[in-house]
């Protein structure tokens, strides 16, 4: 069965519009290609995808080699906001870009929800 990319796009778009302080999200393959994305205007989808894949693979490598185990998420905290990478099974990685104002608890919960929704579509 082929992946319903339209549905993936809708899920991401809903996630970005419905979650306060989320500025963008992208779902990418582990080798850095875009599956679906809702990103702020200036950001290039392909570049964002490649960066997400590189970051996640390095994070997983750190988890493995430095005895941190399997990686649930990678967290980049800047003074302008957050970039959060979450693995969505073997075939996809979710990147969420959020504003500095975002409440972390809410954000994590919303991401968890989005991930389970995405996993269902990818199955």
């Amino acid at each position: 069965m082929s992946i319903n990319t339209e549905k993936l796009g809708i899920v991401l778009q809903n996630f970005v519009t419905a979650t306060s302080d989320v500025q963008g999200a992208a779902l990418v393959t582990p080798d850095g290609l875009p599956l679906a994305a809702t990103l702020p205007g200036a950001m290039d989808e392909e570049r964002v995808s490649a960066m997400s894949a590189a970051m996640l693979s390095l994070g997983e490598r750190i988890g493995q080699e430095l005895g941190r185990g399997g990686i649930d998420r990678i967290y980049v905290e800047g003074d302008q906001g957050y970039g959060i990478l979450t693995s969505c099974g073997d075939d996809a990685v979710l990147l969420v870009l959020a504003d500095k104002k975002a409440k972390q608890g809410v954000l994590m919960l919303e991401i968890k929800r989005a991930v389970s929704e995405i996993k269902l579509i990818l199955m």
Partner: protein
Amino acid sequence: MEIMRLVVTGPVGAGKSTFIRSVSEIEVVDTDRQATDETAELKPKTTVAFDFGRLQFGSEMALHLYGTPGQSRFDFMWDILIRQAHAYILLVAAHRPLEFRYARRIASFMNQRRQVPMIIGLTHTDLPTSWQAENIAIALGYIDPQDCPPIVTVNATEQVSVAQAIITLIQHSMQTNLVNAGKP
């Protein structure tokens, strides 16, 4: 102990990861992921961040080898890696002429950011469709042999061959640094 950082770059499937695996004394830190783009036609897995290997070179020098991803969507990694590099080798598969232009693009990307010594390593030279070194040099834009960086033939799967290429790179790097030091 002195650390020399060498970058191994080139198009997809040129043999960058294999090159580093052949000589590294530590288990290579790789970031391979299953390929889903056109890379999948060449090989099942592709590097998405970098490969890292280490090699002791004499008692005074340690070589740190960094392999880049091949696809241009990872050019931010090319940028990160070349900024720290002391020298680099551009690997080019001699039997894939359609990629020469792309290899040239990688080289100019690197040269725009950093002026570090470089050499060209030709892989897959044992095939009937492989191009001759001098023709590849021209295809890569080195029309005048005087300006052409050293070209070596590498079998990325063979430790001796890779070590030879690395020695050539280090020699070239030292010579270039000497020449530059002599300039006012």
